[in-house]
C-alpha cells in the first residue's frame, strides 16, 4: 500500500496531509515535508490494493490520453466479460460495478453495465444493493427507459424490514423515478411518513417532494400529511417538509397564509437556539432552516400587510442577531434583507436592511461585495437612493478586474436607468458587451440595451447609432424580436411626420455609409435590417440615386458569407428600388443570376424582381411608396378564391385539412407511404411565406375556406402554384408590412415627450463626461452622470413602484377599425422563414398534446390495474371469451354453454345456460356465412322484442350483426349504437326500416377501432312504440376482445425495420414460453399466430419478428426473443395503448393454453 503511494505521480504530490477544510488558504508549496504519504490517517481505508486501486494507479502512470484510452477499453472488455458471466457472484459484481462507475466517470461509455447495475440493486444483499443503487443513480437519468426495471426492486425494498434497504430505496426514489410509475409506490412512501425512525420519515418527505415536482397531481391528496410532517418532532423531518412548502407557497401564496404564524414561531425557536446543538453550523443555529423559512416568509408577506406585520419582530431580531463574522451569517442576512424588501415595507427594518447592504457592498471580501451588489440590484427599484449612497463604490466595481462583479454592476445600472442617465449607462453596457466572451450575456444584454434605447433615447442619431452597435455586437445571436421591433418602430413612426422622416433619413444615411465601408463584417440580421430600411426609405434621401443603393446592395449578394435568407431580403429591397434606366439594368442582371437558383424563395424573389423592374406601372401599384395611401383592405379570408375552391371540390378534390389535422393523421398513419407529403409540405409552407412573408399565425387566422384555396391550388399541381391568382390580391400583401405601417402613419401623431423629459434629455447631453486627466475627477463626473435623476425629485418614489416612464418611441395605438387586422397581421419581418412555420406547428402540436398526456398515461395505468383485477376475478369468463374467439377464427362456430363473450347489460330474463336459438344463424346473410361467426348471444329481451348479436371477422373488416325478433306487433323500431372505443358504421339496411311483426330482422354494422382498449364495447339502445303508441326503449351492450380486430400484416423484414424505427409507442414484457414437445419459440409463436392472428415476418435463431394490424391500417410490430426461459416481448405501434392492449392478449393467449 505504501508503495502505491510513493509511486503516485506528481499530480498527487501537492496534496497536503492536513485537514482539507483547514488548509484552504495555506500555501501548498510550503508543506513539502507532508508529502511522505505513509503517515496519513486516511490511508488505512484506501483499498488501493484492490483491482480498482490497480486500475487507478495504472491510469495515473500513463502519460498520454491515447494510452489511457487503450487501458480503459481493455478494462471495459474485461468488465463486460465478467458481468455477463453466470459465475460472477454478487460480491464480485459489486466490485465490477465500482470499476464501471470509475470508467464512466472518466468519460468512457460502459452502457453494457447499466442493466447489471439494476440487477445488482435487485439481487444483492444490502451492501451490494447500495452500490447497485448508486450505480443506477449515476448511470441513468430519470428519462432512461431501463429505470422501469427498477420499479419492482424499489417496491420490494420499500417493504423490507431492513431499515437500510428502505433508506436506499427512498434515496434512489428521491433522485430519479419514472413519472408514470409513481402510483405504484406512492402508498408505500406515504406510509413511511408515519415510520418510527426519523431518517425514514425525512426521506419519505423528500421523496414526496420529488414526486410533487415531477407529477404534482399525484400527491394532491396528501397535503394534510405534509402538515403533519411540518409539525414533526424531529427537526430534520420538519426541515425536509419546508422544501415542499416553499414550492407550494410559491405557486399559491394565498392558500397558506394561515401558516404564517407557525413559520414565524419556528423561526423564533431556531434563532433563539431551541434546536439541538447538532444542527448548529459554526455556532449558528440551523442556518439552512433559517434561510428556508425566510424565503417562505417573504413569499407569504409579499403584498400582504397583515402577514407582514406578524413577521416584523422576528426579522428585526434576525437582522440584529446575525453578527458580521462568518459567511454563514452573511448568507442569512442576505436572505433577511431580501425578505424585508419583498414584504410590506416597514421603515426601520428597511433602514437596518439598507445598512446591511452597505456593509456588504463596502466589504473587502469579494464574495460579499458581489452579494451586496446583487442585493442592491434587487432593492434599487424600490429604493433608488440606496444606489446614490454607494455611487462611488459602484463606479469602482464597474472597473473591477473580476468580470462577474462588473456584470452585476451593469445589471444594477440597468435597473436605475432613466431618461437622464441613459446615454452613460448604455455606453457602459455596450462596453461590457464588447469584452464579454459569453453568448448568454450577449443575448441578455443586447436585449436590455435595445429596451433602454427604445424607452429613453434622447435623439435620433443616438438611437440609430446605439441600435447599430446592438446589431453589430448582438449579431445573429440576439433575440429576433429586437430587429423586429426596431423595424416596426421605424415604420410605424412615433413622433410626428417630420420627426419620423428625420429618423428614417438618419437611418438611411447611416446604413449607406456602413455599406460603403466593410459590410462583410456585419452580421446577417443587421444586413437584413439594412436592406429593408434602404428598400423602404432610401428615396427619402434625395441626393441618393436608386442605382447607387442597388449597387451597394448588389455587393452584398456577391459576398460569399451572405446567407440565402439575407439574399432574399436584399432582392426584396431591390424590387422596391429598381427605378430608372441604370437601376433596371442592375436589377435585370441580378435577377438573371438568381432566377435559376436552387433556393425556391430566392427564385421567387428573382422572378418578382424581374417582372416588376420591367413593368413600372405594376410596380407602382404593387409597391406603392407614398405614405398617405389609404389603408389597404386585405381580404384575409381569401374569399375571392371561394369559387375556385367549390369548383375544385366539385371536381373531386379533397377538402382542406388544416395543418395540425394533417400532422395528426400523418402521425396516426405512418405506415402508409408518405413520400408525396414529405415533398409537398415544405412547398406549401414556402408558398405561404413567399406570398406573404409574414407571421405564420395568419395561416390559422384565415378561415377554413380560404385555407382551402391555397392548399387546393398547390394540390392541383405545380402549375397552380405559381400564385397568379393569389398575387393579384396579395400583391400588396406581399409587402403587407408596408400597408399596415401605412395605416399607422396616416394617423395623427400624439406628442409623447413631455417638456420636462425633453429638458432632462438635454441636460444629460451637457452632463456627458469629457475626458479629463484626473482619474478621481473622472469618476466623480461619471458618478454624477450615472446617478443623475436618482435624487429626491426623481420620479420614482421611495416605497412605491416607480412610475412608468413614457417610452420615447412609444408605439401608436392603432385606430379601432383597423386594429384587428393590423395586429393580426403585423408581420414579424424576421420570423417568416418556412422553418419557423414548421416550428410553430410543431409547438402547437406539442402544446395541445401536453395537457392530455398525463391523464392519458395515468388512465392507462389504472386501466392495467383494473384489468389485472378483472383477470383474476373473472378469469374463467375471459378465457371463455378467448376460446370462443379462437373458435371463430377457425370458422368453427360451436355452441357454447356460457355467454362469456357478452356482457349483456340489463338482462332481466337472461339465463346464462339458455341454449341459443339455433334458427337465428339461418338469418345470417349469406355473404357472411362463409366466414365464421361468433356464437349468437342474447342482448336483451322483453315480452315483445328479443335482441341477439354476434360478430363476424372478415379479412378486412369486422361485422357486427344484430338480430331483432319481433314477437308482437310493435312498431317504429329504431336502433342506435354508440361506443367510446369504436367507430360504428352501418353496412346493411338503414336502421329506420320497420321491423315487421313476428319476424327476424338483421342489422349489420361495420366496426373499426377508434381507441384501443383490451376489450371494446358497443352500447346501444333500441326504441320502439307499443301498439298504443307509448314509446319504450331497451338498452344493451356487447363486449368483444380487441383481438377480433387484429389481422396479420404482411411486410418484409426491411419494411419492418423502417416501420419499427418510426413508431413511438411501445411496451415490453417477459412472457412465459410454451413448451409442449415442440421447440419453445416455434410453439409459442404458433399459438400467437393462431389465437391472435399475428403474422410471422421472420424467425432467426432465438428471435422472431411478427406484425399485425388493427382494423383498419393501424400496424403493430412485435419483436420477441427467448431469454432465460422467458419470451422477452417488445411491441411497438404508432397507435397509443395498442401495444399495451396487445401484450395483455398475448399473455392471456399463452396462459390459456
Amino acid at each position, binding site marked *: 500500500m505504501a508503495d502505491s503511494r510513493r509511486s503516485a505521480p506528481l*499530480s*498527487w504530490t*501537492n*496534496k*497536503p496531509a*492536513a485537514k*482539507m*477544510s483547514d488548509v*484552504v488558504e495555506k500555501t501548498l508549496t510550503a508543506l513539502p515535508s507532508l508529502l511522505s*504519504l505513509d503517515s*496519513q*490517517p*486516511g490511508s488505512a481505508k484506501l*483499498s488501493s490494493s484492490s483491482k*480498482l486501486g490497480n486500475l*487507478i494507479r495504472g491510469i495515473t502512470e500513463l502519460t498520454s490520453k491515447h494510452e489511457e484510452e487503450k487501458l480503459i477499453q481493455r478494462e471495459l472488455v474485461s468488465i463486460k466479460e465478467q458481468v455477463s458471466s453466470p459465475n460472477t457472484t454478487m460480491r464480485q459484481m459489486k466490485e465490477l460495478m*465500482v470499476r464501471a462507475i470509475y470508467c464512466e466517470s*472518466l468519460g468512457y461509455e460502459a452502457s453494457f453495465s447499466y442493466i447489471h447495475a439494476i440487477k445488482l440493486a435487485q439481487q444483492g*444483499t*444490502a451492501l451490494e444493493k*447500495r452500490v447497485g443503487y*448508486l450505480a443506477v*443513480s*449515476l448511470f441513468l*437519468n430519470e428519462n432512461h427507459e431501463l429505470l422501469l426495471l427498477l420499479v419492482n426492486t424499489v417496491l420490494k425494498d420499500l417493504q423490507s424490514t431492513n431499515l*437500510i434497504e428502505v433508506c436506499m430505496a427512498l*434515496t434512489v426514489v*428521491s*433522485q430519479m423515478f419514472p413519472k408514470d410509475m409513481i402510483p405504484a409506490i406512492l402508498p408505500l412512501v406515504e406510509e413511511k411518513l408515519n415510520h418510527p425512525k426519523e431518517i425514514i420519515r*425525512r426521506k419519505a418527505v*423528500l421523496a414526496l417532494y420529488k414526486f410533487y*415536482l*415531477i407529477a404534482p397531481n399525484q400527491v394532491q391528496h396528501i397535503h394534510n400529511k405534509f402538515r403533519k410532517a411540518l409539525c414533526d418532532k424531529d427537526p*430534520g423531518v420538519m*426541515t425536509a417538509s419546508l422544501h415542499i412548502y416553499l*414550492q407550494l407557497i*410559491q405557486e399559491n401564496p394565498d392558500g397558506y397564509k394561515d401558516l404564517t404564524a407557525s413559520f414565524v414561531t419556528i423561526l423564533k425557536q431556531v434563532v433563539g437556539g431551541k434546536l*439541538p446543538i*447538532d*444542527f448548529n*453550523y459554526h455556532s449558528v443555529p*440551523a*442556518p*439552512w*432552516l433559517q*434561510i428556508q423559512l425566510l424565503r417562505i416568509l417573504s413569499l407569504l408577506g409579499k403584498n400582504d400587510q397583515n402577514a407582514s406585520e406578524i413577521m416584523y419582530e422576528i426579522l428585526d431580531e434576525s437582522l440584529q442577531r446575525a453578527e458580521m463574522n462568518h*459567511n*454563514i451569517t*452573511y*448568507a442569512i442576512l*442576505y*436572505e433577511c434583507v431580501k425578505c424585508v424588501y419583498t414584504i410590506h415595507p416597514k421603515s426601520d427594518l428597511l433602514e437596518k436592511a439598507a445598512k446591511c447592504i452597505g456593509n456588504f457592498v463596502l466589504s473587502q471580501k*469579494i*464574495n460579499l461585495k*458581489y452579494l451586496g451588489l*446583487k442585493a442592491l440590484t434587487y432593492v434599487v427599484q424600490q429604493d433608488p437612493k440606496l444606489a446614490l449612497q454607494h455611487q462611488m463604490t459602484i463606479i469602482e466595481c464597474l472597473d473591477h478586474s473580476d468580470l*462577474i462583479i462588473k456584470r452585476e454592476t451593469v445589471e444594477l445600472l440597468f435597473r436605475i436607468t432613466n431618461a437622464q442617465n441613459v446615454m452613460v449607462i448604455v455606453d457602459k453596457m455596450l462596453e461590457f458587451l464588447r469584452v464579454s466572451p459569453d453568448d*448568454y*450575456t450577449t*443575448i441578455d444584454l443586447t436585449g436590455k440595451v435595445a429596451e433602454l434605447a427604445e424607452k429613453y433615447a434622447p435623439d435620433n442619431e443616438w438611437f440609430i447609432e446605439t441600435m447599430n452597435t446592438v446589431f453589430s455586437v448582438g449579431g445573429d445571436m440576439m433575440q429576433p424580436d429586437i430587429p423586429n421591433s426596431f423595424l416596426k418602430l421605424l415604420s410605424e413612426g412615433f413622433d410626428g411626420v417630420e420627426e419620423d422622416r428625420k429618423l428614417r433619413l438618419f437611418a438611411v444615411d447611416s446604413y449607406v455609409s456602413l455599406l460603403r465601408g466593410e459590410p462583410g463584417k456585419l452580421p446577417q440580421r443587421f444586413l437584413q435590417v439594412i436592406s429593408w430600411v434602404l428598400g423602404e426609405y432610401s428615396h427619402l434621401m434625395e441626393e441618393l440615386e436608386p442605382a447607387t443603393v442597388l449597387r451597394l446592395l448588389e455587393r452584398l449578394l456577391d459576398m460569399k458569407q451572405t446567407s440565402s435568407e439575407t439574399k432574399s431580403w436584399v432582392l426584396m429591397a431591390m424590387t422596391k428600388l429598381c427605378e430608372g434606366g441604370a437601376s433596371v439594368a442592375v436589377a435585370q442582371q441580378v435577377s438573371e443570376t438568381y432566377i435559376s437558383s436552387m433556393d425556391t424563395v430566392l427564385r421567387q424573389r428573382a422572378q418578382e424582381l424581374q417582372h416588376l423592374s420591367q413593368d413600372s406601372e405594376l410596380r407602382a401599384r404593387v409597391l406603392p411608396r407614398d405614405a398617405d395611401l389609404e389603408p389597404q383592405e386585405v381580404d384575409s379570408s381569401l374569399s375571392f378564391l371561394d369559387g375556385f375552391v367549390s369548383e375544385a371540390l366539385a371536381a373531386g378534390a379533397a377538402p382542406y385539412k388544416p395543418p395540425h389535422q394533417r400532422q395528426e393523421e400523418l402521425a396516426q398513419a405512418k405506415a402508409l407511404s408518405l413520400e408525396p407529403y414529405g415533398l409537398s409540405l415544405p412547398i406549401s409552407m414556402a408558398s405561404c411565406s413567399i406570398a406573404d412573408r409574414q407571421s405564420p399565425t395568419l395561416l390559422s387566422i384565415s378561415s377554413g375556406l380560404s385555407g382551402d384555396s391555397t392548399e387546393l391550388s398547390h394540390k392541383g399541381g405545380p402549375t397552380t402554384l405559381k400564385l397568379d391568382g393569389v398575387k393579384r390580391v396579395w400583391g400588396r400583401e406581399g409587402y403587407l408590412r408596408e400597408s399596415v405601417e401605412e395605416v399607422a402613419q396616416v394617423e395623427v401623431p400624439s406628442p409623447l415627450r413631455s417638456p420636462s423629459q425633453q429638458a432632462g434629455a438635454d441636460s444629460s447631453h451637457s452632463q456627458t463626461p469629457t475626458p479629463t486627466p484626473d482619474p478621481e475627477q473622472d469618476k466623480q463626473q461619471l458618478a454624477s452622470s450615472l446617478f443623475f435623476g436618482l435624487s429626491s425629485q426623481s420620479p420614482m418614489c421611495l416605497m412605491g413602484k416607480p412610475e412608468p416612464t413614457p417610452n420615447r418611441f412609444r408605439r401608436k395605438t392603432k385606430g379601432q377599425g383597423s386594429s384587428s387586422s393590423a395586429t393580426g397581421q403585423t408581420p414579424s419581418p424576421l420570423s417568416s422563414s418556412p422553418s419557423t412555420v414548421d416550428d410553430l406547428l410543431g409547438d402547437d402540436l406539442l402544446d395541445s398534446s401536453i395537457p392530455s398526456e398525463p391523464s392519458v398515461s395515468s388512465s392507462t395505468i389504472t386501466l392495467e390495474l383494473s384489468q389485472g383485477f378483472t383477470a383474476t376475478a373473472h378469469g374463467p369468463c375471459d378465457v371463455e371469451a378467448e376460446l370462443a374467439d379462437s373458435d371463430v377464427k377457425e370458422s368453427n362456430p360451436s355452441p357454447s354453454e356460457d355467454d362469456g363473450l357478452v356482457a349483456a347489460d340489463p338482462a332481466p330474463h337472461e339465463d346464462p345456460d339458455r341454449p341459443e336459438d339455433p334458427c337465428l344463424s339461418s338469418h345470417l346473410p349469406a355473404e357472411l356465412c362463409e366466414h365464421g361467426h361468433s356464437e349468437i348471444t342474447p342482448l336483451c329481451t322483453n315480452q315483445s322484442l328479443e335482441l341477439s348479436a354476434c360478430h363476424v371477422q372478415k379479412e378486412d373488416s369486422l361485422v357486427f350483426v344484430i338480430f331483432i325478433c319481433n314477437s308482437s306487433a310493435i312498431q317504429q323500431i329504431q336502433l342506435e349504437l354508440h361506443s367510446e372505443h369504436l367507430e360504428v358504421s352501418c353496412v346493411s339496411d338503414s336502421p329506420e326500416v320497420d321491423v315487421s311483426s313476428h319476424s327476424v330482422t338483421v342489422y349489420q354494422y361495420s366496426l373499426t377501432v377508434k381507441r384501443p382498449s383490451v376489450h371494446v364495447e358497443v352500447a346501444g339502445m333500441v326504441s320502439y312504440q307499443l301498439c298504443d303508441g307509448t314509446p319504450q326503449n331497451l338498452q344493451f351492450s356487447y363486449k368483444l376482445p380487441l383481438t377480433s380486430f387484429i389481422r396479420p400484416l404482411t411486410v418484409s423484414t426491411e419494411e419492418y425495420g423502417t416501420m419499427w424505427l418510426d413508431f413511438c409507442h411501445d411496451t415490453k414484457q417477459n412472457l412465459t414460453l410454451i413448451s409442449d414437445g415442440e421447440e419453445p419459440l416455434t410453439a409459442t409463436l404458433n399459438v400467437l399466430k393462431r389465437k391472435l392472428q399475428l403474422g410471422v415476418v421472420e424467425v432467426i435463431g432465438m428471435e422472431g419478428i411478427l406484425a399485425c394490424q388493427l382494423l383498419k391500417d393501424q400496424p403493430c410490430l412485435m419483436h420477441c426473443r427467448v431469454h432465460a426461459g422467458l419470451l422477452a416481448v417488445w411491441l411497438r405501434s404508432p397507435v397509443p395503448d395498442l401495444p399495451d392492449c396487445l401484450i395483455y392478449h398475448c399473455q392471456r393467449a399463452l396462459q390459456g393454453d
Partner: protein
Amino acid sequence: MSWTSSLPPSFLQMQFMLLFSRQGKLRLQKWYVPLSDKERKKISRDLVQTILARKPKMCSFLEWRDLKIVYKRYASLYFCCAVEDQDNELITLEIIHRYVELLDKYFGSVCELDIIFNFEKAYFILDEFLLGGEAQETSKKNVLKAIEQADLLQEEAEAPRSVLEEIGLT
C-alpha cells in the same frame, strides 16, 4: 441556450455538483437535473476550463449560461456547484464547506486520494447530505450516523473475508 427550460419547475434547486483536481480530472460528478451524456461532458469540460483559469483572489462565483457557478478550492481539489441565478451563492458555498467537513470527519483528514480510491463512499455521503439537489440533513452527526450504520452492515458482512485475506497475505 434553452437547455434549462426542460428542467422541472423547482424553486432554487441545485443543478449539479462537480469535484475536479487541479489537473482538471473529474473526481466526482452528481447531476440533479436530467441531461444527456453529451451535455454533461460539454458542461464539465467548459466549467473545469473556466474555473482553472481563474486567479485565487477572484470571486468564488461566476455566471455561466443562465446559471451561477459557486466553487471553492480545497487543497488540490475544486468543488463546484451550479445553482439558479436567484439562489443565495453564499449558502451554496457553505454547502460545499459542510460537505468537505463531512468527508473530513468520515475519512479522518480527508485528502484527494481518499476520494479517488473511495469515490463510492464520497457519493454515499453526498447522497445522505444532499438529496435531489436539496439539503437533506444538515446535522453533521446525523449524516455520519446514517453512513456509519450502513457501513457497519458492510463490515459485518465483509469481516470473514478480510480475516481470510489477511491470513493469506501474511
